[in-house]
């Protein structure tokens, strides 16, 4: 039975409560008595709190509550620590709005009544227990529970991880939504979410969504600031935006300027091989040439002429300053350049081969050289 398993797991938690309530006052069934007696006699406060996953203050409070309940002489106690909190807390205890938990709690109290139908060992009649538990169930949704742990530890361990996880989620949610919050400590004890806003801010869903949206925009603005040079020193979003707009406009103007220069430089829009060579060598020097880029660029035409290839290799314009010239290539190209720098120009201008083909031939070799 899962009850037995759960009780065994929570031995530490049951210890002090059991002591507080007193085993003698309990009239338990045989099996329950066995369970209770097998529980370890005493527990240090540290392990108790560790078991409950509670900060020590809450545990102390819990103990306090259970101590006070012992005077009421728990009637229907299972393991000595469930029912007393259940009906003695009454107005103070609230359970998390977990239907499974509630059902279990109800079941425990029901079982307790079954066990002790004939026993009149306390002030509260047995019939009051179900009503109490139901009343408590009603009170679940309204009252924050400072002793949610009481209910939690009563639940068998397979559920416990769920519950504690959920509580942690609640806490996380609550914590994340309360940054500058003077009542943050209270929130941590709450089992479910009262989303506390920051000081002086509303909590309705609209403003929350607004806040999330604003945070998104601010994050992206930061990204843009890093991108645009000279924007991190500026304070204020408006000026940063202006700077970004200026940057975009300047880039677009640069494109236009360069396209005009390109049109002017080349009298014919007849891009032949040396242009390909120039640019592609530069790009190759700059970074690694990806195979995928090759595949998508070059169609599969296999016109290979060794002469054209030879021409390409020889015509190697000196790369502009911004390209780091790799040491591996330099001696090779440099030598060839010295030899045949000027004479093949005219040949190349006349050559009107397919752009794609020659570059396809070129790249594998160049890549090999670089590697």
């Amino acid at each position: 039975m899962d009850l037995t398993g759960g009780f065994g797991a929570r031995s530490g938690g049951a210890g002090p409560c059991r002591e507080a309530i007193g085993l003698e006052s309990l009239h338990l069934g045989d099996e329950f008595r066995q369970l209770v007696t097998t529980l370890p006699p005493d527990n240090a406060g540290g392990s108790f709190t560790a078991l409950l996953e509670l900060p020590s203050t809450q545990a102390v409070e819990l103990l306090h509550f259970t101590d006070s309940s012992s005077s009421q002489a728990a009637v229907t106690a299972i393991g000595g620590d469930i029912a007393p909190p259940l009906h003695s807390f009454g107005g103070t205890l609230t359970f998390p709005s977990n239907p499974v938990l509630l059902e279990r709690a109800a079941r425990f109290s029901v079982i307790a009544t079954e066990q002790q139908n004939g026993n009149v060992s306390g002030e509260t009649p047995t019939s009051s227990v179900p009503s109490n538990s139901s009343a408590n169930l009603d009170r679940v949704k309204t009252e924050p529970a400072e002793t949610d742990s009481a209910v939690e530890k009563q639940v068998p361990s397979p559920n416990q991880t769920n519950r504690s996880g959920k509580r942690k989620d609640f806490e996380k949610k609550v914590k994340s939504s309360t940054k500058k919050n003077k009542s943050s400590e209270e929130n941590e004890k709450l089992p479910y979410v009262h989303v506390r806003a920051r000081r002086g801010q509303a909590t309705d869903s609209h403003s929350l969504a607004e806040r999330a949206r604003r945070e998104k925009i601010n994050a992206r603005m930061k990204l843009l600031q890093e991108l645009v040079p000279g924007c991190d020193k500026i304070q204020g979003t408006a000026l940063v935006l202006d700077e970004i707009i200026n940057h975009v406009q300047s880039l677009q103007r640069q494109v236009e300027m360069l396209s005009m220069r390109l049109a002017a430089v080349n009298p014919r829009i007849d891009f032949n091989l040396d242009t390909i060579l120039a640019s592609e060598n530069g790009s190759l020097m700059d970074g690694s040439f990806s195979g995928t880029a090759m595949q998508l660029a070059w169609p599969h035409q296999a016109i290979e002429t060794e002469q054209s290839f030879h021409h390409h290799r020889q015509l190697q314009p000196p790369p502009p300053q911004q390209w780091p010239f790799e040491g591996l290539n330099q001696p090779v190209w440099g030598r060839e350049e010295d030899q045949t720098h000027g004479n093949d120009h005219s040949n190349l201008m006349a050559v009107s081969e397919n752009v794609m083909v020659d570059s396809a031939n070129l790249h594998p070799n160049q890549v090999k050289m670089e590697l």
Partner: protein
Amino acid sequence: MASSDKTINTDVPEKDVFAIHFLQSLSNLTTQNPFNSPDTTNYRARKIKKAAYVSMAKAAGGSSRLWSRALLGRAAKENNKIVRFARRKRKVTWKISSKRRSDQRAPEATDRLRNLVPGGGTMETSKLMEETAHYIKCLSMQVKVMQCLVDGLSPK
């Protein structure tokens, strides 16, 4: 050129991808109108500029970016080609209604940005910023490529 932010992805391909696309478009240009077009520098410049933008949009990721899609759509419209990409559902209504209402105010920074970035008219502000970041990266890459070309081509 990977971005450092792990939630917002503004990766941009390497320089050679841009170079290849640009050169492809340029060679297409040359094969288009060999002899029956006015050969003025301005006309060629405009053609080259359009080719540059289109190739940039293609290199930067075709239809995976809103601005590139808008650019390519615009270019296709100019060529009287109908090119349509699969559109995702866009949250348009809220933004547009707010813009109409406040049309009288001076063009704000975000509005100016919308005018600059292609396709920025109907984007949310956060999406606009993402697209702007990617657009800036691609633009600077394209500028580098073109600069290299010009330097390589210019007579020494």
